């Protein structure tokens, strides 16, 4: 069996506030294999983006990684000094942001931003970096790349800008790309194109993807495996087909049930009753218990750990006898 590219163990992210410590991400563990696409899905505030930021070392103060480890290719990276971590960002882990309208610096040409990033990580001359930048823009599907490269961000449409962002994330050939809601800010009509470009380029380069999104449709089309997050914890992890067709965790089942299907004659859209708890008021026991249709007394006082129930699947729910206490 090959070694995982990324291994997250017991990661916990905390925010000290005046009213006590808020735990945004608690004790999550997962692996990403080389070249694999792991989808991370959940409602807003479930801690998906926070997990991505923690891996790449960009948690904004006063937030901090309180416990846990992040390993990349056998190297522990969560406790590296800032300068060593900086050298990993962009070089070994690339990141794609949500909103292409705000993630490019408006005052710099696309060429400046690409060449600057390439030359930060690779020992290339200005000319060689420029050639590489043009090649990248070509790869992400920007027509007439050699001419457009000297344009400013505002001269591109939203979809084109997201292609530029992808080129920027990939320009030093990272092993892992963290894509944080890469299509949420885009028109539905270009979402599929962006996902295709991202997936194809990463596959060509053998880069793995951590795809953070709340869009189950995107996950279904793109990911190999899916990790479902709820209230800062992993609820379920498994191969994408298995999870979609036969969700084990009631929360996952609720998520799947909330996706309307064509041809279905719905009067109302299905929804999970209630709302995800605030970080300051996560209930004891299973965090999903107040909204769970299959809640048992045990769930209200005992917290389930993410435990293997089938060879490739893990779930944190007391419905399954294999599950242990956290």
């Amino acid at each position, binding site marked *: 069996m090959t070694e995982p590219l990324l291994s997250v163990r017991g990661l916990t992210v905390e925010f000290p506030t005046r009213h006590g410590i808020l735990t945004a991400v608690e004790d999550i563990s997962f692996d990403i294999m080389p070249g694999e696409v792991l989808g991370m899905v959940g409602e807003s505030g479930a801690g998906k983006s926070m997990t991505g930021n923690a891996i*790449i070392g*960009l948690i904004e103060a006063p937030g901090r990684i309180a416990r846990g480890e992040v390993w990349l290719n056998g190297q522990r990276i969560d406790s590296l000094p800032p300068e060593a971590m*900086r*050298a*990993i*960002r*962009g*070089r070994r882990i*690339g*990141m794609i*942001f949500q*909103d292409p309208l*705000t*993630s*490019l*610096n*408006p*005052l*710099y*040409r696309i060429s400046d931003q690409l060449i*600057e*990033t390439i030359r*930060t*990580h690779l020992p290339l001359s200005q000319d060689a970096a420029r050639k590489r930048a043009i090649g990248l823009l070509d790869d992400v599907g920007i027509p007439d790349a050699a001419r*457009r490269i000297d*344009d*400013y961000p*505002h*001269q591109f449409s939203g979809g084109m800008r997201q292609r530029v*962002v992808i080129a*920027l*994330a990939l320009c*030093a050939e990272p092993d892992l790309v963290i894509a944080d809601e890469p299509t949420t800010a885009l028109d539905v009509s270009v979402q599929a194109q962006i996902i295709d470009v991202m997936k194809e380029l990463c596959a060509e380069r053998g880069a793995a993807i951590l795809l953070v999104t709340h869009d189950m449709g995107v996950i279904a089309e793109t990911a190999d495996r899916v990790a479902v997050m709820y209230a800062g914890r992993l609820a379920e992890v498994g191969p994408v087909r298995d999870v979609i067709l036969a969700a084990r965790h009631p929360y996952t089942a609720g998520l799947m049930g909330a996706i309307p299907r064509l041809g279905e004659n719905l009067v109302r859209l299905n929804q999970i009753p209630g709302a995800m708890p605030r970080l300051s008021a996560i209930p004891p026991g299973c965090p999903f218990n107040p909204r769970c249709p299959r809640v048992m007394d045990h769930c209200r006082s005992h917290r389930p750990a993410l435990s293997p129930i089938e060879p490739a699947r893990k779930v944190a729910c007391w419905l399954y006898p294999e599950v242990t206490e956290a």
Partner: protein
Amino acid sequence: MLAFIIRRLAQSALVMLFVALIAFVIFRYVGDPISSMVGVETRLEDREIMRERLGLNDPVIVQFARFIGNALQGEFGISYRLQQPVTELILSRLPATIELAFASALIALVVGVVLGVYTALNPRGYFSSGIMAVSLIGVSLPTFLIGIGLIYLFAVELGWLPSNGRGEVVDLGWWRTGLLTESGLRSLILPAITLSLFQLTLIMRLVRAEMLEVMRTEYIRFAKARGLTRRAINFGHALKNTMIPVITITGLQLGSVIAFAIVTESVFQWPGVGSLFVTSVRDVDVPVMAAYLMFIALIFVLINLVVDLLYFVVDPRLRAGKGH
């Protein structure tokens, strides 16, 4: 862009016309020009003849048109007090004020930006908190007090620097500069610091606030996620975006620095247009006051124009975009 420049030029001309009207009203109606020009013993008939000869009996609109016409040729009449052409008088005093204003604007800009960036990047440091506290004093203390304090410390007690005048000047024909002699430069230090202090704290606080704002933007986070060096992020990506509002304020402040050099020039007896204006006010030397008003307005208008054009240089979004 051309249309923009033309529109701005037209607006500037309108502003200048309005200021000219005010200057004209001061010139014509503050006191009686004839009594200011002649002695008490001049007979009434002679006064009337003079009034007629100078065109003071013409309709107001004709007089205003004549005033504008003269102003366009740089003609503002004769100073009552010094009996010299006003324009000549102002031009001879101008180099002193401009050198002082630019020296203090330079100090304010360089020190202000450096301290602003520093305090923004180290918001929780002791040194930053100290600077912020001191800057409050800088904003709230009046200029003359700072000037007198500096004179007391560095000129009277320590005796390091001269307390007044420009020192030796070198005549370049059309410009008398104090920048080429040691005594000239030494004389410049105290008044330039005094004049710069308010602008300095203003620029510093502005840079700090803007920089903190910019550091929170997505493109800075993305720059960090790409592993760019701290240097490249702070001084390339962040500072350039901070500069747009700073240019505006600095430009406008340069105008105020020239206009409000009056106080500093009085404290340090600096022979510039500001002290010329103060003595003119004291002696009701109306032509000088009117010309000074026009001159300050012209500087403000010109600086505004330059600031607007600078936006185009800094911000590509304002330039006519191809493929947009």
